[in-house]
């Protein structure tokens, strides 16, 4: 059990600056309008740094730097680029604990998660794409004896990326790693809730990348995000966040006819078939952990297993065990490695979750555990904490249909396989799902029947590189975490070559 010192206190291994400018052309550049906004830590609710408030002028400067760097970066050999990505991974690994503490302070999630999930996954992501770009090949078609079609993968050039606040560094890396591997220069706009930890990372790796290859402009969505997404100077925009903004981004992209990848969220069903309880063994224990995964990252995950569907024949007992398991979740100081659930990322997130407790109750859902704000002591008293909560009800209730984005799960039962699938698919979204069964056949058939891009089978919340991740239905467009991402960040050049000296006879 370790309790890390908070950044800014004695013994802290991570220290934030008092103020952050934009990161443009490999250095800090003050905002054009001279304005900054305060950045509080959700752990305490108190401001710990102020960050540049970017606008269209700053976006233009960042685009200038990116355009300056893009041609040479795009012409760098894949070997050279892969070496750099691997160096970035190594550098992050050398500073893993420090980055984990910095991320916890910025976002509020427990350091247990940043140490064991966020940072190792981010590090591995660079390594995966370093390998993927080396192994990627173009292709050749022999059209006829005189004519050959050569296909080359070329970078898009300069791309825009807008990042969410729930895994600030990891979400940035999910987008940066493939974009950089593919030879693009990037202008990245972090979420205004979590603007600083990505800069912490950029400083750490500054000497490894040519200046201008990655540029970071902070600010509010309407002031910095909009000029980036609607700029005619980017060849692609990538976004993770919610549906309305996703639609707006597609709208902006359509003005410039550029491709868009979107990851928009879900209301993921976690399905527990009756055979799960056939024995009280290690697997049953794992299934209970699987149920409790709704609390991971304080429920602030697009794939939060926020609906639990339990087969009727085991419903009573399994649910009782699940409630007990949920009540055992340790809430406390996010910098304590024993803490399992930290702070929600901002006050308005907390308020939104509390408003869902109200509507859930109003609709007649029953609160089995939790259902209120958590009052913590001392320094944590001003932080944004919520108790892990289980609602019991029916799938058409709003707490079953809407993304609450907190440690809240809505539980209902199902009669049989078909009923489970029907309930699981009765949602606007299709990002993630969980299937728990001892029968390989049941698990397989369920997985193929569920309309979601990621079906965790006898596990949950694993995000290894090489497993494609993305949504069906209202959950977005495109797939991340897989070499197919390179296609999203490249365009195909076809050289159609004639080796014949003879004219065709047309003109």
């Amino acid at each position, binding site marked *: 059990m370790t309790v890390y010192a908070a950044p800014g206190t004695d013994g802290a291994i991570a220290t934030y600056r008092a103020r952050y400018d934009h990161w443009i052309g490999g250095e800090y550049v003050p905002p054009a309008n001279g304005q900054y906004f305060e950045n509080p830590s959700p752990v305490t609710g108190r401001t710990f740094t102020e960050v540049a408030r970017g606008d269209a002028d700053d976006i233009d400067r960042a685009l200038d730097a990116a355009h300056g760097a893009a041609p040479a970066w795009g012409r760098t050999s894949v070997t050279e680029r892969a070496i750099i990505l691997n160096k970035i991974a190594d550098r992050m690994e050398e500073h893993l604990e420090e980055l984990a503490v910095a991320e916890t302070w910025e976002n509020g999630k427990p350091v247990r998660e940043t140490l064991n999930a966020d940072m190792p996954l981010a590090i591995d992501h660079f390594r995966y794409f370093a390998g993927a770009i080396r192994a990627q090949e173009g292709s050749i078609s022999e059209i006829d004896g005189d004519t050959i079609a050569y296909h080359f993968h070329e970078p898009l050039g300069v791309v825009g990326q807008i990042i969410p606040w729930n895994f600030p560094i990891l979400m940035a890396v999910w987008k940066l790693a493939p974009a950089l591997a593919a030879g693009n220069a990037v202008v990245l706009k972090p979420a205004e809730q979590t603007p600083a930890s990505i800069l912490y990372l950029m400083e750490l790796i500054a000497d490894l990348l040519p200046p201008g290859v990655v540029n970071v402009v902070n600010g*509010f969505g309407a002031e910095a995000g909009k000029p980036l997404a609607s700029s005619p100077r980017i060849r692609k925009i990538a976004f993770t966040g919610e549906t309305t903004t996703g639609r707006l981004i597609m709208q902006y992209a359509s003005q410039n006819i550029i491709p868009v990848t979107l990851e928009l969220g879900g209301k993921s069903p976690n399905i527990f078939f009756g055979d799960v309880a056939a024995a009280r063994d290690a697997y049953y224990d794992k299934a209970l952990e699987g149920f409790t995964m709704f609390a991971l990252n304080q429920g602030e995950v697009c794939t939060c297993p926020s609906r639990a569907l339990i087969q009727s024949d085991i419903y009573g007992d399994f649910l009782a065990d699940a409630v007990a398991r949920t009540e055992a979740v340790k809430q406390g100081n996010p910098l304590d490695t024993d803490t399992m659930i930290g702070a929600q990322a901002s006050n308005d997130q907390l308020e939104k979750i509390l408003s869902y407790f109200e509507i859930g109750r109003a609709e007649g859902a029953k609160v089995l555990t939790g259902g209120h704000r958590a009052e913590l002591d001392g320094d944590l008293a001003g932080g944004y904490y919520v108790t892990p909560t289980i609602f019991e009800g029916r799938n058409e209730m*709003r707490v079953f249909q809407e993304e609450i984005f907190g440690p809240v799960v809505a539980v209902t039962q199902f009669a049989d396989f078909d009923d489970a699938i029907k309930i699981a698919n009765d949602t606007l979204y299709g990002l993630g799902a969980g299937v728990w069964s001892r029968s390989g056949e049941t698990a397989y058939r369920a997985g193929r029947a569920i309309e979601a891009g990621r079906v965790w089978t006898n596990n949950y919340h694993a995000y290894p590189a090489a497993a494609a991740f993305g949504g069906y239905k209202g959950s977005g467009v495109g797939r991340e975490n897989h070499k197919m991402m390179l296609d999203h960040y490249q365009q195909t050049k076809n050289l159609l070559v004639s080796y014949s000296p003879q004219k065709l006879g047309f003109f």
Partner: protein
Amino acid sequence: MSDDVPAPARVAVTEAAAELLVRLRAKHGDLMFHQSGGCCDGSSPMCYPDGDFLTGDADVHLGDLAVDDFTVPVWMSRNQFEYWKHTHLTIDVVPGRGAGFSVEAPEGVRFLIRSRLFTDEEWAALEEV
């Protein structure tokens, strides 16, 4: 539906949110709301300059908020409305960091929805949208 009683409104606004809208309109011109779904900043209404966000057949016009001497239309996507239509929505505002491209973010606040179920009488009297 009774001829005497007007159909109940589906949307309302708190005084605090209305005051904010007056300030925002002075900066940005006419405004609109689109209720978002989905992750991160979803499940909260987004406020844009009117017309910035294109609405069409995929959306439902829930109603207009009457604020001061102007109105602010409130929209939601049609498929989402199917799950929300039994609830009355009041737009409120809380301190926060803001979200997406919603225009109130730089003010240090965030619009929020407070919901209640329609009564049986209201439900019978509601108009189609």
